């Protein structure tokens, strides 16, 4: 039965009819205790849904929908290693990557938790070697720069985590610089290499398949750069001292030249966009040290346990997901802004764009049928205080309804003796609260606003969620990201789609390969569509 044909869906539809005429400001007037009725927490992470256009009945009906879609069953399957990724016939076990060493999970007769922890131990020895200054380059100087070469999940996650946790760098990492390179055109890498010392640079080549063209092209450039700087050391020596491979395909990595002793493994049951908890997180561990990295994993694990065991009506990822379902499918809002009020979280919007849109940007259900309801909305975002000077105009006065996530830490700089920075955090908090207040309540928050001319009015009624951490640290950051991961899963269950594949990105790679030959010097007259032909001809004329 299609998701939108169920009893709960229909009940929600008629409930939405009455709620769609309600303004969020009137919900607050009618219900003074709204904050305590619609906030939920897990281990110091607070989820405030009170500025959503919902009431108690909405939540009850949404939980009924989740039950009707057998969500509890699905959660169990996710954790147990059932093949929830049916199009690729495999499990999605990112939760296993953060399970403690004393747990166990058998997949094909093998305890994968043991594999995970063995791999973490190998990661630890690499991290310690670099941190102690004993990972030596070809001249014998210690490595002091780590360059992560990867793309998509092998880039966005570690990049975001390193930025988010920049203030949590461990002492032994003070002298280690970490860089990320992803773009295929080589511009990032070329500029970076100009400023690096080859003798002291370690490259981490992260690719699940170790065939990703973007990554291998950059890796090849890095290898050539090293060879150019050393006339004496052999290629084998250079690669063994300056490259670590992180891959689910160790043979391919070996073929490229990386010895097994320099390889870290992850497994095909880890999706790329769920992989920063695995060895793909090596740059994170290089920055935080393994103690910090393990805190990050344990924050995510605590959210996993909450997701697995808490009743649906108190379950943060479930509530976050179901409120999204409400906005998308019942209030017909198809835009979602991610607004972190914390400069350290600047890569979070890009990360969630991939997590949500690559997972749930689908229009065929698990049975292969076309879907006739909306799935993943368009996500975008920016650090809130910057976005205030950019697209907030549209949020406040445009014609699009947009749901907004505000993400902020209650504490920052509290342990410094820098009053200027402390004041800046206050300013930041004030802006965060002000914007979500106006977006949801409109100018009703101001007395006499109704008398203002139309172009000065703020209609409000944009549903807002606030996620407040006590402070941003490895543990809370792990919780935050795990919460979004599970939210995405819950929504996929409601929509009956597979969130763990990404077939929509394959065709582009194939067509690009066929166009590559059309760009070669010995090309024949192109035979594509007239636009592509025209552009190819233009390149032939002007590109040389």
């Amino acid at each position, binding site marked *: 039965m299609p998701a939108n044909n169920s009893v709960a869906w229909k009940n929600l539809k008629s409930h939405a009819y009455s709620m769609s005429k309600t303004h969020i400001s009137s919900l607050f007037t009618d219900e003074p205790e709204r904050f305590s009725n619609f906030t939920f927490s897990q281990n110091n992470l607070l989820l405030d849904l009170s500025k959503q256009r919902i009431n108690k009945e909405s939540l009850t009906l949404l939980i009924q929908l989740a039950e009707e879609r057998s969500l509890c069953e699905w959660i169990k399957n996710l954790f147990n290693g059932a093949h929830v990724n049916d199009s690729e016939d495999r499990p999605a076990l990112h939760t296993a990557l953060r399970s403690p060493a004393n747990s166990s999970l058998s997949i094909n007769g093998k305890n994968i938790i043991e594999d995970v922890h063995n791999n973490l131990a190998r990661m630890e020895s690499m991290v310690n070697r670099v941190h102690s200054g*004993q990972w*030596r380059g*070809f*001249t*014998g100087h210690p490595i002091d720069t780590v360059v992560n070469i990867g793309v998509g999940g092998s880039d966005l996650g570690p990049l975001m985590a390193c930025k988010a946790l920049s203030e949590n760098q461990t002492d032994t990492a003070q002298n280690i610089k970490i860089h990320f390179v992803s773009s295929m055109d080589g511009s990032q890498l070329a500029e970076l290499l100009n400023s690096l010392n080859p003798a002291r640079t370690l490259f981490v080549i992260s690719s699940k398949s170790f065939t990703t063209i973007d990554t291998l092209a950059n890796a090849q450039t890095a290898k050539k750069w090293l060879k150019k700087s050393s006339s004496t*050391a052999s290629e084998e*020596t250079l690669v*063994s001292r300056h490259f670590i491979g992180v891959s689910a395909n160790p043979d391919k990595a070996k073929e490229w030249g990386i010895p097994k002793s320099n390889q870290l493994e992850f497994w095909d049951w880890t999706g790329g966009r769920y992989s920063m908890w695995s060895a793909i997180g090596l740059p994170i561990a290089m920055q935080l040290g393994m103690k910090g990295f393990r805190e990050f994993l344990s924050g995510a694990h605590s959210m996993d346990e909450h997701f697995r065991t808490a009743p649906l009506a108190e379950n943060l990822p479930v509530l976050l997901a179901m409120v999204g379902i409400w906005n998308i499918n019942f209030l017909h809002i198809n835009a979602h802004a991610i607004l972190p009020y914390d400069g350290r979280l600047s890569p979070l919007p890009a990360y969630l764009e991939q997590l949500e849109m690559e997972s749930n940007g689908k229009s065929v259900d698990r049975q292969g049928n076309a879907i006739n309801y909306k799935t993943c909305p368009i996500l975008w975002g920016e650090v809130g205080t910057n976005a205030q000077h950019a697209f907030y105009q549209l949020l406040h006065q445009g014609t699009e309804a947009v749901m907004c996530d505000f993400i902020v830490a209650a504490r920052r700089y509290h342990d410094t003796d820098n009053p200027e920075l402390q004041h800046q955090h206050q300013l930041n908090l004030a802006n965060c609260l002000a914007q979500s207040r106006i977006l949801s309540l409109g100018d009703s928050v101001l007395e006499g606003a109704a008398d203002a001319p139309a172009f000065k009015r703020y209609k409000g009624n944009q549903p807002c969620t606030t996620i407040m951490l006590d402070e941003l640290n490895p543990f809370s950051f792990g919780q935050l990201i795990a919460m979004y991961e599970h939210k995405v899963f819950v929504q996929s269950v409601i929509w009956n789609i597979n969130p763990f594949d990404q077939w929509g990105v394959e065709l582009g790679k194939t067509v690009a390969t066929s166009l590559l030959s059309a760009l070669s010097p010995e090309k024949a007259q192109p035979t594509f569509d007239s636009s592509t032909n025209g552009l190819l001809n233009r390149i032939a004329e002007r590109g040389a």
Partner: protein
Amino acid sequence: MKVTIWGNELLAWTSAAALAESGNHVVLVNNEHELPDEVETEFKVSNEPGLEQLLTETKATGRLAMGTDQLGINHASVHILALNPDQFGTAELLIARLSAKHSNNLLIINQSNFGVGSTDRLQNRLDACNNQVISYIPNMLAEGTALQDYKTPLTYIIGCTNDWAMLNIKALFRPFSQVTTQWLLMTSKEAEFTKFANTGMLALRLGYINELANLADQLDVDIEVIRAAMITDPRIGPHYLHPGCGFGGLHFQQYIEALSELLSETRNSKLLDTVLTENEKQKEQPFRKLWRHYDCDLEKRTISIWGLSFKAGTASIDNAPSLKIIDALLAQNCKIQVHDPEAMSNIQKYFGDHSTLTYCDNSYDALKGSDALLLLTDWPEYWSPDLDKMKELMINPLIIDGRNLLDKELLVNSGFKYYGVGR
């Protein structure tokens, strides 16, 4: 004269021994006193040649006693501060107590390196009108020759502008000033600056010659030829111009760090900071030569080290290149065999029991089955080794000479592979 000496540094012990030897009644207050900022590292009297013996002798005469802080304060009105650079807080408290006890005619000689201007800050806590005076005399002792330096100084640099205090200082140092040709009198701030300036100059010379040596390595030029020519210029002279695998020692390094910080904070100058950074790299240079010789793979190699103290003539291993090199070799799973004529017990205490680290009493024992010898300290006994015996003992006759002790041509002719510093 009755004198109390405060501190647990080389200077404290050396001046206690020398002053007691020349008839003064000395109380030395070091690790027993109940003062803050206690320095945790214990000073090793045995590291310094002749010192332990003189201390034993002067204690036997009854003129040198170890005491508590209370005893030290009451004992004398002449006090020498030989504290660690980190103990400025201790000095401030001590000055307050001394001032309360000796309301007039109190002479304090500060020889601790608290930084430029710090003696003046301490003087502000005293009453100069009643002859409560603190002066500054830079500590010019070198580890290894401390007693000799103390007892036969050619020059006294004295930061003192009070006549009464100057009279007493001259009297105190009279037994040692028979060969002294110059008394340079200046303000304490100027004297502090002088100490810093000297130390920085020496570090710069060492840093410069090492930088040249590394360049010579790459250009295939022998730095020893260059050095021999350079020192004929009287404006340059021969001192502190030997290339090597980095300088160490406790005080030299500590002073340069302090000076580097001062320069960087007040002048935004990275001059000495660069010298320090490069010196740390220089300490690992013998390791790097070894690493490249064996194509970046030292797994299971047997490596011998001769010389562990930071320089010849002392057992001290403070900031010695050997520490960094042993760490690097341990991390590469090498088998390491080490020897030093004086520093064995210090190094053993530092590294403890290690299955891959062997402490050898005889320098030739350290060469058995060796893939390379690293020479890190210029002890006299390493200057003319028995080359035949060495070749017999070593599996690979490879010598990496971190002090340019040996004759390159002779070694090469005898079938050794030789790497020096800049040659």
